[in-house]
């Protein structure tokens, strides 16, 4: 079980590296799809079918939108020359890596090892079938115990749509 997850993660890492170094944008976007669909299979391996269903459709929609955006642009990335700013970027990246690694080292002591999770918090939720009446526990939590979060999520989605329309629409609705 764990070994399959490791294989999927290595595939995702390869896909992301290729995606960031691809010459033209179309192959970058398509190999970005590897990461998303690898994530879908990882969700299935981790027993989260709800998330797998959402992620697979979202990934397709994201790919369609991205390809629609870059479709009629023919930009090829020119060779990056080593310069002073490049050196600074790498230094910043190294500092970030060290900081994240130290933080991860600190918290990994309090994390239980992979697959040995003890559901301290979620015991009430897993027993809550008869409280919400929903056989799918995830839906029961999303709408029952944590309705406020869902309300906030709906608001964020609405705001994002308004933002997209505001940015993209030049003419008014009257068409003047």
């Amino acid at each position, binding site marked *: 079980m764990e070994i399959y997850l490791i294989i999927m993660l290595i595939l995702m890492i390869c896909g992301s590296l290729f995606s960031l170094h691809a010459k033209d944008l179309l192959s970058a976007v398509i190999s970005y799809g590897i990461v998303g669909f690898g994530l879908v299979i990882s969700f299935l391996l981790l027993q989260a*079918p*709800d998330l*797998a*269903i*959402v992620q697979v*459709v*979202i990934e*397709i*929609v994201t790919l*369609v*939108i991205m390809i*629609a*955006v870059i479709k009629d642009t023919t930009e090829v990335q020119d060779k990056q020359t080593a310069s002073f700013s490049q050196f600074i970027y790498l230094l910043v990246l190294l500092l970030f890596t060290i900081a994240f690694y130290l933080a991860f080292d600190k918290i990994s002591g309090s994390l239980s090892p992979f697959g040995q999770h003890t559901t301290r918090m979620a015991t009430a939720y897993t027993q809550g*079938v*008869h409280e*919400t*009446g*929903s*056989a*799918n526990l*995830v*839906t*029961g939590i*999303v*709408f*029952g115990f944590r*309705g*406020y979060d*869902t*309300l906030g999520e*709906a*608001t964020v*989605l*609405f705001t*994002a*749509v308004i933002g*997209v*329309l505001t940015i*993209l*629409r*030049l*003419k008014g*609705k009257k068409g003047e």
Partner: protein
Amino acid sequence: MKGMTIIVRKVTQFIAPIIFLFGLYIVFYGHLTPGGGFAGGVIMASAFILQILANGEILDKLRQEESGLEFLESGAILGFLIIAGLGLIISSSFVFFSNFINKGIVGKLLSAGMIPLENIIVGTEVCAAITTIFIALVVFKDEVAL
């Protein structure tokens, strides 16, 4: 926006209603099987996206559709708030998001009180939002060039 070849268009005629129906199924059975409002809403939106991509739509018609979708989306959020507020007014416990309808038997379609209603409303909202984003990004992109 131009459409695609006849093969794609003819197959879309059959596939798009079935995809939409499957999205509705995911929404209606969200409290029994994997899925729910979010997944079903995105699947329903993908049926519309498939139709727009395959047939190629006229810009003016899409403008009308888009304003209708905005109306649907705002209405869905309002409905969500009303359902949440009903718990405050009607139920005896006076809590926001109170699940006051009879729960029924776990595993039947008519169970879980308010959760199917909330599923349907969130599905409508997500479907409208993602279709609007797609129309804006793909169609209004051409408009900016004018």
